[in-house]
């Protein structure tokens, strides 16, 4: 005889360690099964868009670091591209390659965090996360050599980068790339065909491509749903038209594929970094004739976008001819990827909830802005 159960509403978060920040899910359970999900956000809302209206174009770069703090370099890049589009200028060749290089290092770091926590949420407490963080730590050390900061880097500027890499950066990068190839090989060996991981994630929470597109999902989540769409390929910016890489695409659309796509993207990022180092030529790294206080034409507007580690990150800038953006709208991939939470969670069990949420890889700094 079935036991009659009452549905129960539980708040997961905002202080729950596995919600990746201050994110709250109001979930109604029937026993172990999820009946209803409502995401509640805004706990980290700092009003970045309003703050940007009070700062000049160069100062806004510091705000972008604080959006998705696991991929600050890519945020810098997206914003700088938008400003450059607004002005109709292009950075020097060396700056383009430097930006591409650091953006790919940042993508590796961000994916390592995503994958590390994903495994942690599956119950493999500590070890795989430490494997991931061991390598991420060294990427942050490299950033420290570049600009003195590890997380809030502000390395890029409209019209190039803040400064050229110091001479000791290059041997450190070579050493890192050598070690990381081995470390990541271990990581792959440990995880990619791990039986427990497959049993827990294969076939769980599939996201069909039509729904993913309709919900404006982007980045690894979209590609795991079988949609071959990467802005680095479709609308190449900086030096992405000069490098070769593949776009991994999932075939099962499930949690495992979202994990697998990120693992493959790390490999592709390594390829891009090697090609950037090969093609770097000496030269200026910042446009000399661009003033510190930028005044774009009144009425000018631009939508600059990049393929960030979480998806399409866009900055929509509108100028009124002043020294600060009149409007700076941030299209954040984390927020929009959350549109599918309900689809991913409803009907699945409590134990899969945390894992599915981890597979989307949200960052609250970017969700709430």
């Amino acid at each position, binding site marked *: 005889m079935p036991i009659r159960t009452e549905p129960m509403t539980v708040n997961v978060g905002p202080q729950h360690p596995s919600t990746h920040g201050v994110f709250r899910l109001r979930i109604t359970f029937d026993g172990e099964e999820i009946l209803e999900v409502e995401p509640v956000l805004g706990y980290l809302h700092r009003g970045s868009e309003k703050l940007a209206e009070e700062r000049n174009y160069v100062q806004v770069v510091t705000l972008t670091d604080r959006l998705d703090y696991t991929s600050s370099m890519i945020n810098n890049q997206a914003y700088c591209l938008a400003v450059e589009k607004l002005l109709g200028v292009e950075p020097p060749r060396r700056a383009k390659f430097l930006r591409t290089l650091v953006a790919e290092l940042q993508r590796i770091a961000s994916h390592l965090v995503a994958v590390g926590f994903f495994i942690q949420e599956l119950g493999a407490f500590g070890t795989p996360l430490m494997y991931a963080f061991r390598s991420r730590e060294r990427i942050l050390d490299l950033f420290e050599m570049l600009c003195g900061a590890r997380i809030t880097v502000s390395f890029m500027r409209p019209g190039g980068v803040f400064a050229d890499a110091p001479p000791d950066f290059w041997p450190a990068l070579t050493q890192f790339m050598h070690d990381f190839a081995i470390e990541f090989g271990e990581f792959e060996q440990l995880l990619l065909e791990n039986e427990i991981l497959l049993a827990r994630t294969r076939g769980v929470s599939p996201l069909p491509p039509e729904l993913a597109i309709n*919900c*404006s999902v982007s980045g690894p989540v979209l590609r795991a749903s079988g949609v071959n769409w990467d802005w680095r390929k479709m609308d190449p910016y900086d030096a992405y038209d000069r490098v070769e890489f593949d776009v991994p695409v999932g075939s099962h659309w499930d949690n495992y594929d979202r994990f697998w796509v990120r693992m493959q993207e790390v490999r592709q990022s390594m390829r891009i970094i090697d090609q950037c180092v090969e093609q770097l030529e000496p030269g200026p790294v910042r446009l000399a004739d661009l003033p510190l206080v930028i005044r774009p034409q009144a009425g000018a507007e631009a939508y600059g976008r990049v393929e960030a580690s979480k998806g399409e990150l*866009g900055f929509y800038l*509108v100028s009124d001819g002043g020294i600060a953006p009149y*409007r700076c*709208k941030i299209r954040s991939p984390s*927020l*929009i990827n959350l*549109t599918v939470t309900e689809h991913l969670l409803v009907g699945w069990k409590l134990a899969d909830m945390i894992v599915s949420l981890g597979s989307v890889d949200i960052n609250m700094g970017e969700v709430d802005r």
Partner: protein
Amino acid sequence: MLVKALSGEQLAERLEQALPDSVKDKGRDEVWVEPSRIAEVARFLKEDEALDFQYLNSVSAVDFIEYFAMVYHLTSLNQRHTAIVKARVYGREGLVVPSVYQIWRGADFQEREIWDLMGIRFEGHPNMKRIMLWEGFVGHPLRKDFL
């Protein structure tokens, strides 16, 4: 094949053919449509085979004091082109625009955010409430007159 941007001219022509009187104005990169017909225009842009805009990149609102500009950035993944559709919403109080939620689910959080921070309501959105700030907050902080 790379993504190319459709010009305001091309978009205006297509829209004018299919939905007479929906186009108000056109710019170099964008087309301005009648705000009350946004949902209708959106459905056409999505369902027309040549345009095929299944993907909504972003929805933004800009406060120009005299009016609010609604800005829709769209992409067609099959046709590999992008478009910008805009609408002018005049007034300061009680602003309502048709929601595109039923056409692109991706508008869900962005429309709620615009209501929260800019104070434009979306008719037909199933869950039109504040998203970043709490219910009971007075005012819409991204407006230019919010100090």
